[in-house]
């Protein structure tokens, strides 16, 4: 019998950023690995983690910050590890309206910045980046979706600090927005990755490796044929398919998906893609950024305890060209 895995996103499953994970199921990649994967959505990392620890779910998709905090001396270390680096560079962006006078981050000094909520994982990073830049902004929680967009449009905030797919969604509303260039070391900070429990890694590394490989293949597939990827997603979640003009809906959704695919494929140029691999230096940067942002009291933290590259060779163990061919032929 196939191994049963429950995978959980830290927001709804219904965002297009989940399209590759969903496509892997439709394409039968999980089955090929002898896995039976189910999906689940939670409101926030912290809501998901207890479920992971209770083994009600096996794989989660959180940001690094909450997990890093558990390494602080005096806190209960969570017996979990990231095993696959998914969103390889920061999905958090700073956007302004196209006609805004602000050209660089520094121009935002003293202005108001919209964030989803003060509990969003990017808030400490953003604070750290400001410190580094020597600027200061007033943070305003504006929610996501229309509410955030209206805030920007009506000038209640001067810039928005949300994530890639959200910004792409704004663009599909026919609004011109501009992304501001961030500091390199912050741009590099990876966002969501796949996580599982230490016990699971010990007990069934094969299943975990299989999951990573299936997702890697699906990512290649989606990159080659985003239209098909979006349609598979709609098939799985018909209620999320926008009503109205189908062609426009498809074009919009592809735009949104592509904004995320860029992050999933953000590998160093000219080298073979090593799916899921973490760069130890970026972890160190992450710790430093959280410390600067006031989220960690010390930099004396060993991130090695919460991630592993052990399974990375297995993730890339497939014929990418064949997948691309399959994708191109898929209708």
């Amino acid at each position: 019998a196939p191994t049963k895995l429950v995978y959980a996103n830290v927001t709804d499953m219904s965002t297009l950023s989940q399209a590759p994970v969903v496509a892997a199921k439709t394409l039968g990649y999980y089955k090929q690995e002898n896995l039976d994967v189910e999906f689940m959505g939670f409101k926030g990392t912290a809501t998901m983690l207890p479920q992971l620890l209770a083994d009600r779910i096996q794989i989660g998709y959180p940001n690094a910050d909450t997990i890093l905090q558990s390494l602080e001396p005096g806190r209960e270390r969570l017996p979990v590890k990231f095993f696959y680096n998914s969103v390889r560079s920061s999905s958090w962006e700073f956007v302004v309206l196209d006609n805004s006078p602000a050209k660089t981050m520094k121009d935002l000094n003293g202005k108001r910045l919209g964030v989803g909520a003060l509990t969003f994982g990017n808030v400490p990073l953003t604070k750290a980046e400001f410190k580094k830049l020597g600027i200061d902004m007033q943070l305003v929680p504006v929610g996501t979706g229309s509410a955030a967009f209206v805030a920007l449009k009506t000038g209640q905030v001067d810039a928005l600090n949300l994530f890639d797919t959200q910004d792409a969604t704004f663009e599909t509303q026919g609004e011109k927005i501009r992304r501001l260039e961030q500091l390199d070391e912050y741009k590099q900070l990876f966002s969501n990755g796949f996580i599982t429990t230490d016990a699971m890694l010990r007990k069934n590394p094969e299943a975990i490796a299989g999951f990573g490989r299936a997702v890697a293949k699906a990512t290649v597939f989606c990159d080659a044929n985003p239209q098909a990827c979006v349609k598979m997603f709609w098939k799985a979640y018909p209620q999320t398919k926008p009503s109205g003009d189908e062609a426009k809906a498809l074009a919009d959704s592809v735009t949104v998906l592509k904004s995320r695919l860029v992050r999933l494929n953000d590998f160093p140029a000219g080298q073979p893609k090593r799916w899921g691999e973490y760069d130890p230096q970026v972890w160190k940067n992450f710790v430093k950024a959280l410390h600067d942002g006031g989220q960690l009291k010390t930099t004396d933290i060993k991130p090695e305890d919460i991630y592993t590259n052990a399974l990375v060779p297995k993730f890339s163990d497939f014929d990418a060209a064949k997948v691309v061919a399959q994708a191109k032929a898929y209708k």
Partner: protein
Amino acid sequence: MNERIKSVVYPLILFALILALWSFATSRFGIPTYILPPLSGVVAALRHGFVEGAYWGDFLYTLTSVVSGYAAGCTCAFVLGCLFAEFRPVERVLHPFVLALQSMPKVALAPLILVWFGFDLASKVVMVALVCFFPMFINTVVGLKATPPALIDLMRAFSASRWQILLRIKIPSAAGHIFAGLQISIVLGLIGAIVAEFVSSTKGLGFLINSATAQMDTSTMFAALASLAVLGIAGSQLVRWLHRRIVFWDRAASQTTLSE
């Protein structure tokens, strides 16, 4: 025109007017879709949802959690309410706790319930049951205690047992209060289900609203809200109808049921 026809026709006219105004406003003033969707968009979303069938799963999921939670919560509340009203010591010990729990907004417990009961249907059912419990419990207790003492004396004078008095006198005479409780609980139960789905779900009308929000798809959002309203109205009307049928002797029935 007689009263009956008037009370159907006039609201329909107003409804048509509102729809027309909405339609006009969105098309004429170019109100952006992300602030107010055009009527046509909402209609399309409803078509997509219910004719093409994309929302049925969500609708049924929410319906299932509301119905099971409602049944469980109201049953427990009724049984415990009877115990509470019948046994003075139980009441004396528990009264302050009931007061405290009653005044606490139960939706704030949603994240904890998820931790305790998992993310499946179970946690939604628990949430709904919890939210339904209090209005029903309180109304049962108040209703039982409001039994006219004269009726109780009557039964005692004819040598009825405590059990006979509860069953034959107190419960029927509390029926009005109990139905009012059922009425409040149904709307609160829907709220509970939606909030639980906000916190974690892959299905349900709450999930639909949440995902539509993220995608700025206000048409779907309105469609989901409309479905919720239909669920709420159908539920209350059902309870109201039962109330009228069962508590036929209570002239004020048509009034008390109006009260939330």
